Structures are given as structure tokens and as C-alpha cells.
């Protein structure tokens, strides 16, 4: 089962939920956490995994064989990212703009384009207690998160529970991270911005036909707007984490909630059961 954790905006406590859920379930299940927020991964700060494997995350970029090239211009016409320029006597490639889609090499009539791998990030694989841990880190200055996310997701278990921490927002990297999940948890805070971004996130997850539920973090007296929205949209409200000084302190010290306040463990186990029930219902 794959459960992804997303949020319409940053700083809502997505990682708090992902890490606590992983730790709570790891006593009785085989669990892995995949941090797919490759632009700013932070789950490792809480889980402090020991890494034993590193891989380079890379994309295939074109290399043109000038001997074979007739400067027909086809490659630059097919490249939607404008990563190739064809002049009368030369072809120029701009690897930092290339998304590695392979279209140019495939369509070159002279078979003049070979591909070479360009590293854009690293994948680190390890363990934190009984939780398997994988994250991707995009190199500084690189813009292409989705290929790194895809490479992180190659490590998803075929059995057990995989928990994916997605990046905040509703852009391509989030879609890439959430895609293929059985369930998506959306973490929000009870502010007008929180609601606005939650609604965008719900739309994105629904477009992927993934069932979702909401968790309110820093819950206080202002929850009613979010609750009304969830009611209207028929989205289950699965958990509320109160605005609480103890919880905030743990978070700021990089201590997972369920390790700091152990009664939360049972609540996260209940949360998992609620998710299972929703997924089952969906399947009927």
C-alpha cells in the first residue's frame, strides 16, 4: 500500500505526519518512508537514518555525432524545451534545459544523436530503526525535480507500506510524487490560505483519481471553515493535531511527534486503519 502525504502549501507539517505515521506503523508492519520533496528534503532530520547506498540521479541528454548530422533541424523542431539549436553548419545542445524525454534521439532521421547521462541529483538509501528510508536530493541550481522523484520511487516496496512525503504545492513535482498512490493525506492549517491551497491540492489529487483525506495541523478555534469545506466536498477529516507548545517544541528540535509524546502512536495507528477502510470502500 502506498500512502502519500501532500499539502497545498509549505510549512503545514506534512513531514511531521509522514514521519510519525512511518514510526507508528513500523512496529507491526514492514514500512518505508520515501522523501520525494527533492528540492528541500527534511524527513531525514527527524528520522536520522543511516545511509548505506548512494545512487546518482540522472537524465539522458543528447550528444550529436557531427559526422552523421546533416543539420536538417528536426531535433530542434521536436524539442519543446528548446534545448537544441541547429545552425547551417553546427548543432548546439543546452543540457541544462533538456528534460531527457528522448524525442530528439528517437526522431533524428540520421540516427546522429546518442544519449549520455547527466547527473542532476543523488538518491540515498538507508534505514532508521525498523523504517526503510529513501530520499532524493536535487543538486543545487538544477530545476528538474520529476526525474529525481521517479528515481526515488523506483525503490518502492512491492509489499509492505510505503509512505511518500511529497513537496508542498500543486505543481509537477507533487503530481509526480503522488501519482500511483493508493491514498493521499492532505495536511493543512486552519487559515484562509490553508483552505485555498487545500482546495487546489484536492483538485490535483482528484485529477489523479486518488482518494484523499484531510489532517488539520495546528488545529484551533478556526477549524470550522476547513470542516465545512470537507463536508461539502465529502472528504473525510481524519485527524487534528492541536496548536500546542509541546508539539511545536518537539518539531523544532527535530523529534518526531510519536517519539516525544507516545500516546500519539495509537492515534496514528487508528489513522492508518481509517485509511485502510477508505481504500477498501473505494475498491468496491
Amino acid at each position, binding site marked *: 500500500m502506498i500512502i502519500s502525504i501532500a499539502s497545498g502549501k509549505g510549512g503545514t507539517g506534512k513531514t511531521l505526519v509522514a514521519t510519525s505515521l512511518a514510526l507508528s506503523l513500523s512496529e507491526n508492519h514492514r514500512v518505508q518512508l520515501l522523501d520525494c520533496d527533492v528540492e528541500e528534503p527534511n524527513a531525514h532530520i527527524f528520522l536520522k537514518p543511516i545511509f548505506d547506498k548512494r545512487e546518482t540521479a540522472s537524465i539522458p541528454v543528447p550528444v550529436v555525432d557531427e559526422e552523421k548530422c546533416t543539420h536538417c533541424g528536426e531535433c*530542434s523542431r521536436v524539442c519543446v*524545451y528548446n534545448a*537544441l*539549436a541547429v*545552425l547551417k553548419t553546427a548543432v*548546439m545542445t543546452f543540457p541544462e*534545459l533538456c528534460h531527457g524525454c528522448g524525442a530528439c534521439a528517437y526522431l533524428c532521421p540520421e540516427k546522429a544523436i546518442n544519449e549520455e547521462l547527466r547527473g542532476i541529483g543523488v538518491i540515498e538509501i538507508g534505514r532508521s530503526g525498523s523504517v526503510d528510508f529513501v530520499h532524493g536530493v536535487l543538486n543545487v541550481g538544477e530545476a528538474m525535480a520529476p526525474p529525481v522523484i521517479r528515481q526515488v520511487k523506483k525503490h518502492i516496496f512491492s509489499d509492505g507500506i510505503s509512505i511518500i512525503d511529497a513537496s508542498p504545492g500543486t505543481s509537477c513535482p507533487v503530481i509526480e510524487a503522488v501519482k500511483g498512490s493508493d491514498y493521499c493525506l492532505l495536511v493543512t492549517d486552519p487559515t484562509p490560505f490553508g483552505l485555498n491551497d487545500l482546495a487546489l491540492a484536492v483538485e490535483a489529487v482528484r485529477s489523479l483519481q486518488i482518494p484523499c483525506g484531510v489532517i488539520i495541523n495546528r488545529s484551533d478555534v478556526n477549524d470550522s471553515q476547513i470542516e465545512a469545506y470537507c463536508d461539502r466536498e465529502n472528504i473525510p477529516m481524519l485527524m487534528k493535531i492541536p496548536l500546542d507548545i509541546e508539539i511545536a517544541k518537539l518539531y523544532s528540535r527535530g523529534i518526531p511527534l510519536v517519539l516525544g509524546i507516545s500516546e500519539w502512536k495509537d492515534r496514528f495507528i487508528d489513522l492508518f486503519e481509517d485509511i485502510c477502510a477508505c481504500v477498501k470502500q473505494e475498491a468496491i
Partner: protein
Amino acid sequence: MKIVLSATGPGFEAAVDERFGRCPYFLYIDSETLEIEATDNPGEKASGGAGIVAAQAVADKDVKAVLTGHIGPNAHEVLSKAGIKMFTDVTGKVREAVESFKSGNLKESTGPTVAGHFGKGPRV
């Protein structure tokens, strides 16, 4: 000599657009006969690599010189490779710019004059 200007409109009275990669029009002008041809700039609405497509488009037209405000690093690379001279910091009307060019009053640039993404507007 055939030259090209980045412009805000399609004729001699239009202003020179300071953005090479993102300008709406390219005006191809024969500096002797003043024959003029206006085209759209394929870079204007490109999601990325605007300078590259724009530079390739003008190189396809066999121009000898580009007159514009600023040129980014990628466009600069393509234009240099194509052997096209670049005159930057050009302002005012297209008519005036062509006059300055003919009288040799423009300065040729040797390197990119702005970082990438110039003239792209706020990131959305």
C-alpha cells in the same frame, strides 16, 4: 547588409525592444535598400529556452548583425557560433537605430549582457 532588430511592433516607427529572446517582433532589414520584413519571434511565448529559439530563427535568415537591448548567455552562444555580430543597448525607434547602425555609431558587444531569463516577467 541584412540585419535584424528586436521590436515592439512591425514597422520602422516601432520601438526597439530591449529583450532579444522575448520581444514580440523581429524586423529583418536590408541596411542599403531599407527593405523590411517583420516576423513573430518564436521565443516570445516559449516556456523555456527563448533566447535559443530566437537566435536560431534569426540565424536561419542569414542575418549579419543583431540590434537589440540585451542578449542572454544562451542566445549569445548561438549567435556567436553562427557568426552574427551583436549590437546591444540599442534604444529608440527602429528607424533611428538603423540610422545609427549605418553611421557606425553602435557598439558591438562581446559577451552576454544579462543573465538568463531576462524579460521573462514574474515567475508564475
